[in-house]
């Protein structure tokens, strides 16, 4: 079965919007983190779709590099979150307002 390109790109846009929704709605840092992963996945999906329809694999190399980047981002980000939690005992971003005033 050949998946139509538009379906893939619309699905990618939908996943991206769900990720944005998570970032805007939730106040828990870890949920926001997961939403960022969702958005990265959406972009990867679009890249793979275009790679399939242009019929060359350059897009998949990009996806591979983006995945590596996501792994690096998760490791550093979670280290930051754990350090933050150790210092301030919270994961609610509304209480992380040290630099606000």
């Amino acid at each position, binding site marked *: *079965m*050949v*998946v139509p*390109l*538009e*379906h893939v790109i*619309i*699905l990618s846009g*939908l*996943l*991206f*919007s*769900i990720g944005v*929704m*998570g970032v*805007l*709605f*939730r*106040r*828990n*840092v*870890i*949920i926001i*983190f*997961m*939403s960022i*992963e*969702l958005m990265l*996945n959406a972009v*990867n*999906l679009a890249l*793979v*779709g275009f790679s*399939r*329809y*242009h*019929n*060359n*694999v350059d897009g*998949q*190399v990009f996806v*591979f*590099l983006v*995945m*590596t*980047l*996501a*792994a*690096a*981002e*998760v490791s*550093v980000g*979670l*280290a930051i*979150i*754990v*350090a933050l*939690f150790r210092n301030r005992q919270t*994961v609610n971003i*509304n209480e992380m307002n040290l630099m606000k005033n």
Partner: protein
Amino acid sequence: MGADIIFWMVVALTVGSAFLVVLSQNLIYSAIALLFSFMGVAGLYIFMMADFIAATQIVIYVGGILVLIIFGIMLTQRIRDVRISHTSMQRGIGGVVVTLIFLGLFRMITGSPWHFEAIPEVEGTVSGIGKLLMVEYLLPFEVTSVLLLAALMGAAMLSRRGD
């Protein structure tokens, strides 16, 4: 058509669990839903003949990133109050912004004339990706390895206790 039904089931799995990630009250449920969403995306990669990327998706995202996120949950929540909900503050404005973003993307996608025709069958993509990584994209590949090293050292330094 069997493949059609499977495709729409995979799409429903991906989108449904993505919604669950965002809207679930319980953090652990969110993480498990994220697992299914990643699996769904891997299935979509298979539908687009990207076999290597689908395998990488499962190994890196499901095997690595998700486990790390669950570790993060365990380290930052007191297990007794697992349902730290913190649901929402600006659900109204946020909903409007999200709807606008999605409608904009949708209009742009459906309004553009796409001229590509997919070739029904492709052989495995592994050798193509390998050649591109080792020849054309060698510099980004090496830079990525330096980035990973820096991330490793940064994570170790940040999560060290004390001083």
